[in-house]
């Protein structure tokens, strides 16, 4: 009964989305405010319906209702409750429901935080989001229904893939989807602006915070995915350039470019058409990711069970949504105009270069991801594109972008002077150059890449310090504290996010340059030393988990004769799918991670063991977290808080009327 209620709620949600996707947009086109006013209640109603459907599926999992096909396929009676609930998004059907659910959360958020927008704009934004959700609900109801019954019911379920039975599964997908789907807001803003023909600085001002929030979620989501791969897969790597990782990284790159381009549109009125295009790109790449994961066109560890019918549906959906938006763009964007002029050496110029580099990086990731498919489609053979390609193209593209990251925030809008910039930055440059050359030597190993990485990181930090100092010098207030307080949070947010990049670069550089790895056979009682740490293997013990049996190894780790920690890596065998999993043991630290994973059992209680010493690896994810915190700080800026409070002050009534007649 409960699953049928969920199914029914989905059908109702589809009906509501049809209403939401048609009446308000039509109303905005003809200036009928009654039709436009449908948008808000429809968006909220749809949210409640999808919430209901989501809870129904959650209930079926919690109650182990194996008469529901999806529940039987992705869970098991022995599976602990938290993983049964996470199994809601453990496979294709349920993760689509999560997608739609999160989309409806964003819609409700827009309906609440858009009171300061003109009604036509709000109606169009919610209408566009309604259209997107219509496509996805239709997809679920036609070929991917999570509520489908299994009659007669299965005695027990086939269980969730053991790889996914991990705390990461509980938070990583919702975070990632919050980011992915969050770009639908920026997308809807862009389409609404194109439809209305009101592509101006206010449009950019409104869509900036939404873009930043989505970007923060995506940053955390991607970082968590990377961290999860690091400790769960047992290979000690943190990024594999797998097609699905790329699928989440490409919207991130587009979103990062969009944030910067929107800043120009907001402050200077420039890059308008470009910002709109990036907003379309960011969401399109999210959709493309959805397609790549679910259609089976590429091989990946993440791929869902594939079904050509599903692939076809998403492809058609993709073609309609993206194709439609790009045609709309081609039709409307030429009228937008270009905004104020600027010289190449100016903040606009730097941000433009940043955008070009980010989009080039995005393009090269896209090319690398789809290249095997292109070749196969042209019958030129099967290849796979791996890390060597991505590393080769990515570093040269990012190096100048990072260099500009230091200069850009210090340059004036419109026209800056190169000699003046050079004077202001000479100390920052000198300090980073000297440290970057000397530091690796002091650590005992010098390679050009280590120095380059360190130099970029220190460059970001020192230029940020220069920027902050200049800002403080010009700020009002007598005390340092007062002057610090007068610096707007948006500026702090930018500094923090940039320094997050610096931390990230330090992490990557140090891990690549100094990590030590050893594969060896260890007998019971034997010791091995890497990176100054001595690991003593005390053998393994059998133990029984809720739905698996495991061999747990004990490693005593000591440094300079002092015991530092005891590590327990595991080798698990999950009962239902009879699959073995490696659970690495990690001893994290600010300056290094120790990482032990069990290979295969050998004779006499000996095991093949893999030991790693990974300096600074946690800085990679720490850096991402700092970037996201920077984003949060930026949207908590005073001007947004004011904007939420005062309603419709930005837009005088007269312009509103004028806009409606234009549209």
């Amino acid at each position: 009964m409960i699953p049928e209620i969920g199914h029914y709620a989905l059908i109702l949600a589809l009906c509501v989305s049809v209403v939401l996707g048609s009446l308000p947009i039509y109303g905005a086109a003809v200036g009928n405010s009654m039709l436009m006013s449908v948008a808000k209640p429809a968006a909220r109603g749809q949210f409640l319906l999808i919430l209901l459907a989501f809870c129904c599926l959650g209930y079926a999992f919690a109650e182990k209702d194996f008469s529901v096909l999806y529940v039987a396929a992705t869970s098991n009676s022995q599976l602990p409750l938290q993983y049964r609930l996470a199994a809601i998004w453990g496979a294709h059907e349920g993760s689509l429901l999560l997608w739609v659910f999160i989309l409806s959360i964003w819609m409700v958020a827009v309906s609440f935080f858009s009171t300061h927008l003109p009604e036509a704009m709000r109606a169009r934004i919610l209408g566009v989001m309604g259209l997107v959700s219509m496509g996805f609900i239709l997809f679920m109801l036609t070929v991917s229904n999570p509520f489908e019954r299994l009659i007669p019911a299965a005695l027990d379920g086939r269980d969730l893939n053991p790889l996914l039975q991990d705390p990461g599964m509980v938070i990583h997908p919702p975070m990632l989807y919050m980011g992915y789907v969050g770009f639908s807001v920026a997308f809807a803003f862009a389409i609404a602006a194109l439809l209305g023909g009101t592509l101006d600085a206010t449009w950019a001002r409104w869509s900036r915070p939404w873009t930043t929030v989505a970007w923060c979620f995506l940053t955390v989501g991607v970082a968590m995915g990377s961290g999860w791969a690091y400790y769960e897969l047992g290979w000690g790597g943190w990024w594999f350039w797998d097609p699905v990782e790329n699928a989440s990284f490409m919207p991130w790159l587009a979103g990062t470019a969009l944030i910067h381009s929107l800043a120009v549109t907001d402050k200077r009125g420039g890059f308008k058409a470009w910002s709109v295009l990036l907003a379309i790109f960011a969401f399109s790449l999210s959709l493309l990711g959805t397609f790549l994961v679910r259609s089976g066109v590429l091989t990946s560890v993440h791929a869902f069970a594939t079904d050509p019918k599903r692939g076809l549906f998403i492809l058609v959906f993709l073609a309609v949504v993206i194709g439609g938006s790009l045609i709309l763009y081609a039709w409307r964007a030429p009228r937008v105009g270009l905004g104020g002029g600027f010289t190449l050496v100016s903040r606009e110029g730097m941000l433009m270069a940043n955008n070009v580099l980010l989009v080039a990086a995005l393009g090269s990731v896209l090319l690398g991801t789809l290249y095997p498919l292109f070749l196969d489609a042209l019958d030129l053979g099967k290849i796979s594109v791996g890390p060597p390609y991505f590393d080769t193209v990515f570093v040269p593209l990012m190096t100048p972008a990072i260099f500009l990251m230091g200069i850009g925030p210090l340059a004036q809008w419109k026209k800056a002077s190169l000699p003046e910039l050079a004077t202001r930055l000479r100390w920052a440059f000198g300090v980073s150059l000297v440290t970057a050359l000397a530091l690796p030597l002091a650590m005992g190993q010098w390679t050009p890449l280590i120095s380059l990485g360190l130099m970029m990181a220190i460059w970001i930090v020192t230029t940020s310090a220069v920027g902050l100092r200049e800002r403080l010098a010009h700020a009002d207030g007598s005390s340092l504290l007062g002057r610090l307080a007068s610096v707007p949070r948006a500026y702090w947010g930018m500094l923090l996010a940039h320094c997050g990049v610096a931390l990230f670069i330090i992490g990557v550089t140090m891990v690549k340059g100094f990590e030590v790895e050893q594969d060896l056979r260890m007998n019971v009682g034997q010791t091995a030393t890497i990176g100054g740490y001595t690991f003593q293997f005390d053998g393994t013990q059998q133990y029984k988990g809720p739905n698996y049996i495991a061999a747990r190894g004990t490693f005593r780790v000591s440094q300079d004769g002092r015991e530092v920690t005891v590590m327990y890596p595991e080798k698990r065998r999950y009962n239902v799918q009879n699959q073995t999993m490696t659970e690495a043991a990690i001893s994290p630290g600010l300056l290094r991670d120790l990482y032990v994973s069990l290979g295969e059992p050998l004779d006499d209680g000996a095991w093949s063991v893999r030991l790693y010493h990974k300096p600074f690896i946690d800085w990679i994810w720490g850096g991402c977290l700092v970037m996201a915190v920077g984003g949060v700080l930026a949207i908590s800026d005073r001007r947004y808080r004011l904007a939420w409070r005062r309603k419709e002050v930005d837009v005088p009534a007269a312009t509103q009327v004028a806009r409606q007649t234009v549209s």
Partner: protein
Amino acid sequence: MNRFLIPFGVFVVVVGFLAVGLTLNPRELPSPLVGRPAPDFSLPQLHDQGKVLSSNDLKGKVWLLNFWASWCGGCKEEHPVLIHLAQSGEVPIYGMDYKDTREEALAWLKQWGNPYPIVAVDALGRVGINYGVYGVPETYVIDKAGVIRYKQIGPLREDILQEKILPLVRELQNQ
């Protein structure tokens, strides 16, 4: 030409490729053994355990090697195709009974028909390892010199047979 149409143009091309991609299977991997000499084997025969089937006996003719097992579902699927091919007499199909028990294999052939002149028994799957078998059924086309020319992973279908295997076999037979 409107430069704002460029993104749309690029997108159309990408969608075209994605559409073609949907019809392809990225898991269909080319075997590194294609173009290499077929690994030698010498195994007892299924029907007459006293005799041995050796790959050396088959030199000088074009033949198919079909890995199958009574426990394998896909083998039942491709079986009518094999029977049909055997009746046409165009090319002999030698069977390799892979990780199977003798009784079940014999019963299976009795029930569904036997397309093979000789079936060899690879009870431990050692020969399967040499041939790089991913999973049964798999079919290899081997030429007169004993070189693998084609590998089919998964069940053989009539269209694959007509479009790929038979033209290849005829070409090899004429060499």
